[in-house]
């Protein structure tokens, strides 16, 4: 399982496009959204974790790398569970990298995003869990190209209909039990993905 998580990291950080993404995602969001919006910190973490978690599926669309993975001595169950566990690791990395990036920008005297603090964990983690729990079953089952298109719609949809409104109604949603709902959906999604992946034909 650890080897699978390590594989995703090696893959992500060996790729030039991922490195360019890591360098550019903070300035890109700052310049396109602006620093006035309360949701900017959430959006940065959300974007980072979502991309890092789903990036390895992108390779499947290009060269069917899932066939390589299936020939290795790995249980399909481990492939699914490791992906769900990696959300938490990616979240931690995303939080640290985004925080460090913003801190450096502030130190250099460019922009001060004062809405980025530890309390963001409470609001962003359930949304990220929920969002990836919706995405992952399709990525585990559908042909890679179709799954990647669906995945993009889910990312944009969650950003527009959850992240942005959440900055205003966050307390209300948390009060309605969003974290508990996210955890339930997370485990349900993992079960569905396990079933979908274990019964999938890799044509």
């Amino acid at each position: 399982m650890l080897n699978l998580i390590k594989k995703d990291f090696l893959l992500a950080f060996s790729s030039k496009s991922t490195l360019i993404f890591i360098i550019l995602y903070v300035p890109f969001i700052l310049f396109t959204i602006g620093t006035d919006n309360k949701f900017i910190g959430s959006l940065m973490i959300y974007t980072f974790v979502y991309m890092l978690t789903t990036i390895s599926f992108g390779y499947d669309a290009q060269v069917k790398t899932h066939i390589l993975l299936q020939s290795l001595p790995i249980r399909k169950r481990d492939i699914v569970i490791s992906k769900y566990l990696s959300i938490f690791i990616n979240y931690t990395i995303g939080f640290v990298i985004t925080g460090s990036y913003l801190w450096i920008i502030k130190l250099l005297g460019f922009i001060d995003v004062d809405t980025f603090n530890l309390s963001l964990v409470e609001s962003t983690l359930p949304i990220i869990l929920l969002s990836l729990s919706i995405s992952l079953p399709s990525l585990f089952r559908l042909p890679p190209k179709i799954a990647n298109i669906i995945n993009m719609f889910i990312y944009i949809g969650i950003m527009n209909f959850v992240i942005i409104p959440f900055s205003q109604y966050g307390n209300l949603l948390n009060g309605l039990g969003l974290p508990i709902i996210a955890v339930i959906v997370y485990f349900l999604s993992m079960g569905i993905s396990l079933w979908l992946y274990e019964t999938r034909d890799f044509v």
Partner: protein
Amino acid sequence: MLEIKNVSKNFEKFKLNDISFNLESGYIMGFIGPNGAGKSTTIKLIMNLLKKDSGEIKIFGKDHIDFEREVKNRIGFVYDESYFYEDLTINQMKNIIAPFYKNWDEKMFSKYIKDFNLDYTQKIKKLSKGMKMKFSLATALSHNADLIIMDEPTSGLDPIFRREILDILYSVIQDENKSIFFSTHITTDLEKVADYITFINNGEIVFSKSKDEVLESYGVVKGGKDLLDGDTRKEFIGIRETNVGFEGLAENPQRLKKIFGSEILIERPTLEDIMIYSVRR
């Protein structure tokens, strides 16, 4: 070592129908058939990339799904095309693959990389098809696999590369605990190295026999067109007629020799003859 028993798989437009064959330790089995006959489907079923509808697949005497991890630890798989992460270098790709194998042998991998003139720092996408195949072979042979499964490894390669790969396979098989299952439609490759031939056509196994038995039990019969009538035609698996005569493939050609005597000429067939005439049937 590899036991396929009554395996079936249905697709919308194709059916793999109740196939069975065995591969023992220490041998190379060639798996032949035209494009679309079911070779890759069979290999994908063995590797659990596809779910079988019925039947049994045992590798090293164990069910290939119940003991998937254990079984795959002892299989070296070489693909018909490159499924590696193209942006990575050979070394990075090796670092991804190696930790999954219990018996990964770094020294052996380095030896193959050196023998194959590959460069650790070269990106996979920069490798030629032949080099990618060599890299694939190097990874398949560097974890002490007992069974090497190869899906069309020589297709699209020039004769020199193909010969090199066949030589490597031949050296691997010197260890009698190892076996190779090798699908191809380039049958001349198999005539050089295979011990057994399994022929699949339209999703059904036509035969699975030792190569010598196959080549001895068939014959290419040549003769004048006047010898062909409704009854004699039935003796042939396939016939090709020209203006001057006919050429056909027959099982047990000695029987025809008794009927036609010196009017016919019987030649030893190649695997390609057997495949072509059986498909044309």
